[in-house]
């Protein structure tokens, strides 16, 4: 019973934070709500007993990616964006359209989910309990899918080179303040 209460509380917090990303006018508030959504998703990972993944979600998503977002947003002068998004029929239309898409996704998820629930009840009794999730992760990464792992390293290298090259096209890293 306590598990159910915890899950519903976390789910409602995450969904509310996600909604406020879309519906708030100030972009900084949106970015901070996205941080709250990431933290909520990490907590939901803990309810699924994926402890290491929850920690990684906190370190990488909420601690690195969102810091980048918030830093860059704070460096800009946002008065024009604020005015552009708070009035007019176009923004109202955009908001209604986004709510409509979310409603469609929710209805589709429920419809498909009930079908998936019937299928998985048959397989639930035969699944073995998860003992050590990091061991399975390590085995998959370093033994079975080594090529994908190395390719990921190369992709990260490409991102690094690309970012530095991109920032050099217009004035670059030595731009005077």
């Amino acid at each position, binding site marked *: 019973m306590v598990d159910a209460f915890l899950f519903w509380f976390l789910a409602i917090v995450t969904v509310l934070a996600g909604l406020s990303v879309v519906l708030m006018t100030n972009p900084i508030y949106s970015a901070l709500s996205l941080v709250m959504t990431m933290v909520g998703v990490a907590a939901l990972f803990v309810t699924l007993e994926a402890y290491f993944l929850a920690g990684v979600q906190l370190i990488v998503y909420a601690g690195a990616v969102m810091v980048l977002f918030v830093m860059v947003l704070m460096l800009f002068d946002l008065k024009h964006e604020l005015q552009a998004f708070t009035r007019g029929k176009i923004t109202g239309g955009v908001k209604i359209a986004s709510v409509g898409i979310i409603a469609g996704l929710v209805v589709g998820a429920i419809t498909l989910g009930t079908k998936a629930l019937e299928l998985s009840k048959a397989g639930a009794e035969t699944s073995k309990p998860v003992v050590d999730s990091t061991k399975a992760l390590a085995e998959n990464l370093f033994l079975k899918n080594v090529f994908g792992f190395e390719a990921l390293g190369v992709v*990260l290298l490409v991102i690094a080179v690309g970012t530095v090259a991109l920032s050099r096209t217009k004035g670059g890293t030595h731009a005077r303040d």
Partner: protein
Amino acid sequence: MPLGGVIFITLFIAVFGVILIFLARATGGKAKRTNQAKMEIYECGIPEQEKKDTKISVKFYLTAILFILFDIEIIFMYPWAVHFKEFIANSYGPFVFISMMVFLAIFIFGLWWEIKSKALEWD
């Protein structure tokens, strides 16, 4: 993992902080005597000089992006490090070692290139 405990103590600390702020407001009082000079930003005592077109350095963005990339690479090292001795005991040692060394070689090359190309020179 005691998730309920973590959530409880987070809410407790938040409520504690809010109560402290309200306590400070109640005892110290809201700003009663406000004049123009007190509400302005502190800038070494001179009136605020707002330049219209302050260009922000792009180095902050580069630092954050490179931090994300290297953070992801460090995260990949964690499951490897935890089970390293187990893998050695199960005779997967050389394979796992070589795979991670190749990954680290790519990482070191990226770091060396980034240092050599002076991407993070702060002046």
